[in-house]
């Protein structure tokens, strides 16, 4: 399955958002937040969020800001 993670196209076997996060090395308690196709997906919903081909995933963390 081809998806886009943080703007970069890539292939994945993960079937849920949680599996994707784990596959990318984000542990369960990592301070990251997620969105799929432009909509926020809460941490608690990652497990039930099924991925499909061409999904666009955002995985973000706290950074400096003005």
């Amino acid at each position, binding site marked *: 399955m081809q998806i886009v993670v943080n703007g970069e196209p890539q292939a994945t076997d993960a079937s849920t958002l949680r599996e994707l996060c784990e596959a990318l090395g984000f542990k369960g308690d990592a301070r990251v937040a997620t969105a799929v196709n432009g909509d*926020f997906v809460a941490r608690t919903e990652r497990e039930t969020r099924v991925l499909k081909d061409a999904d666009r995933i955002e995985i973000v963390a*706290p*950074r400096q*800001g*003005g």
Partner: protein
Amino acid sequence: MLDTPHTTSPETADASSDALTLYGHAFSSRLLLGTARYPSPDVLTQAVKASGAGIVTTSLRREQAGRDGSRFFDLLSALDVAMLPNTAGCRNVREAVATAHMARELFDTSWIKLELIANDDTLQPDVFQLVEAARILVADGFEVFPYTTDDLSVAERLIEAGCEVLMPWGAPIGTGRGLANPYALRTMRNYFPDVPLIIDAGIGRPSHAMQAMELGYDAIMLNTAVALADAPVDMARAFAMAIDAGRLAARAGMMDERDMAVPSTPVAGTPFFEFDGG
């Protein structure tokens, strides 16, 4: 998820005789400091401390695979300040709303500094999308700090949408020009005497911040002027002093301007004075 700003020692609204109160939380400092563009994390840390800021602004950005995302968060957590995440870079309502939700989860706060940028030249707010996003986010339980202009008709819509604080710009972000339109900002202050108004963006020098405080603004948000100073830590302290002094001056009742000179030293009893001109 908490609905309060993340800080280990929140002051209460009556903690101080002249506290700045934002969405029920009281702060003794009236400076909000941005955390970007510093030469190093260590300088950032020292600058935040020197500024005395009770609130710092943050963002969220894409994380590299394998990271745990907490390094920057932990750095700020050690500073015992409230974090106010922003939606910087968002160009439409949907992006801003999703970003706000991610920020709420990441920073454990319902506070959001709502930025919806209209164009790259000025980085001014897109006032239409700003109001629309504010309505959605307030309905979703956020406490919104909208980055706006000095436009009163926009401000009224934001207040109607549920914003309890407004953040009008002084000048375009990063320009350091100070208050581009002090007349409009004075009018805005007078028009909304009871709404906390925070100047956001455009401040380049401590005297700019002080001028805004003398006009009666409640607080100042700035970043570049400190981060890009030759000595950011000293500059943070200079801004802190300027803002406190400006607040003090506004409450101490400044003299009115005059056209004609008037002596300070008393005229009566001047030696050598005579009726023939002495």
